[in-house]
């Protein structure tokens, strides 16, 4: 761990197994996943596509149930979306409500979740929109914005509810490389400023190492934990300097070696 915050288990996944009905029987997507996640950590879950990493996140979010095993959020067993955890979908174009303006999208959770006065909702909405640097676009509709801006609206909508945990499912996979860097910096700074716990699903090893305090790599389906690596890189991180650190390259090599081995590819650069 990076040493931020207390390390008592905050989020606990025990013996998660998930089966899906398939032609001619069932396929096992996840098997025997045990993880304890500390408050304030930034955990990336990486793995080859189809390894069940998104499924795992949806189980943590209470969007789907596990076949067996359980998720505990502090002392509560998750059997539906827990109020303290919010989910940011990969498909921002589909997750934002096109009939609502940016402002109304951001306040969606607030209006529905908490008993706040109109002015308090407006106040917090404005504050969060400023935090994701969308001031001036309040009255725009999401579809009038670029992909990166839309994903920021989705992040703002989640943050407006002041969640303790942010669950992000490949949130930057649909934007271009430069936009992605901008969003990575945004999420990292929000994580640090707001003391969030982030679980971040990605297929990009570099993104996982750069952002996280811990990276969990899953094997191919049925997904199990292959590598569980604490990322002890200094904060603040820098897109160029951090990525040039020997330590960074070490983490990267370990994880890539695992992924390549799992895929049956030769990991020449590790040798």
């Amino acid at each position: 761990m990076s040493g931020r915050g207390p390390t008592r288990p905050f989020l606990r996944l025990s013996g998660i197994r998930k089966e899906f009905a398939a032609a001619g029987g069932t396929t096992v997507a996840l098997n025997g996943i045990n993880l304890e996640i500390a408050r304030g950590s930034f955990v990336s879950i990486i793995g080859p596509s189809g390894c069940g990493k998104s499924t795992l996140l949806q189980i943590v979010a209470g969007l789907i149930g596990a076949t067996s095993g359980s998720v505990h959020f502090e002392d509560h067993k998750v059997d539906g979306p827990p109020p303290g955890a919010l989910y940011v979908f990969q498909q921002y174009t589909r997750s934002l409500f096109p009939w609502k303006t940016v402002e109304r999208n951001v306040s969606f959770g607030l209006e529905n979740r908490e008993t706040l006065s109109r002015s308090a909702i407006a106040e917090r909405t404005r504050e969060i929109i400023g935090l994701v640097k969308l001031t001036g676009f309040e009255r725009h509709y999401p579809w009038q914005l670029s992909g990166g801006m839309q994903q920021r609206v989705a992040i703002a909508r989640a943050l407006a509810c002041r969640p303790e945990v942010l669950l992000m499912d490949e949130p930057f996979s649909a934007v271009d490389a430069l936009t992605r860097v901008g969003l990575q910096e945004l999420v990292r700074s929000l994580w640090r400023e707001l003391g969030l716990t982030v679980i971040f699903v990605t297929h990009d090893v570099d993104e996982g190492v750069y952002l996280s305090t811990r990276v969990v790599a899953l094997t191919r389906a049925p997904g199990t934990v292959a590598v569980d690596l604490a990322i002890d890189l200094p904060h603040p991180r820098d897109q160029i300097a951090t990525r040039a650190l020997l330590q960074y390259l070490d983490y990267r090599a370990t994880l890539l070696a695992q992924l390549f081995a799992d895929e049956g590819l030769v990991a020449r650069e590790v040798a």
Partner: protein
Amino acid sequence: MTDSALPDATPLSEPAAKRPRRYALPWQTRWLGVAFIVVLLLAWEIAAATGAMPSLSFPRMSGILAAWWRLVVSGELPRELGDSLWRMFAGYFIGAALGVLLGLLMGYFRIFYNLLEPITEVLRPIPSPAYLPIVILFLGIDDAMKIFMIAFASLFPVLINTYSGVRSVDPIQLQTARTFGVAGRRLVWQVVLPAASPFIFTGMRVSLAVALIVMVISEMVAASSGIGYFILSAQRGFQIREMFAGVLTLAAVGYVLNRLFVAIESRVLAWHYGYTQQQRH
């Protein structure tokens, strides 16, 4: 806050600089069609004036327009039209509201679908004039009968479209609402209805045309007022100019209602047009 910090901070929506527009020639616009109508009316006038058509059943257009004007000034036509429109809107809004409600229930709860889908499919294909005699038996020939007829006929297009709309709400939107703890009535008002609204509007537009038709039919069969009654009784009294004036009025009313509907729709669904256009890029 400035947005210059992030590379993607330019909205795509900035209207593209307007191209200098040259004047369109009349035949490149809808004025061509308007002119075509004028030509047809003139041909009508000439055909009737020269006696090329039987003048009794085919009066001159100028005579029809004069009769129409007399009926408007005397207040007869506005009165009949007022009676008709009140019935039509009463029936239309009752039918549309029920259609949305039932479509929502059927789209949302499997049990309502299983319960109501068969009877919907049985009742829907019956042309409304066919059950008019039955409705007269139960409700007589007054407004209640006509409003029922119009409501019943307006119900199905709205119901079916609302159902399709509810079924096609993006599951990601529903999941998003769930993660924010939004469920039940709030989910319906905040997510399901707005997402289904383009479908609902389509159904309501179809129903509006249906309501106009059923209004006229039910007034022709049994009524003592209304535009349908007026047209039929003018024909029976050999007031052919008045009869045509009534039909002309219906054309105008249908046109205005549709334009009004489109105007409301494009306001309410402005987001939808913008959104779908963006998706196509």
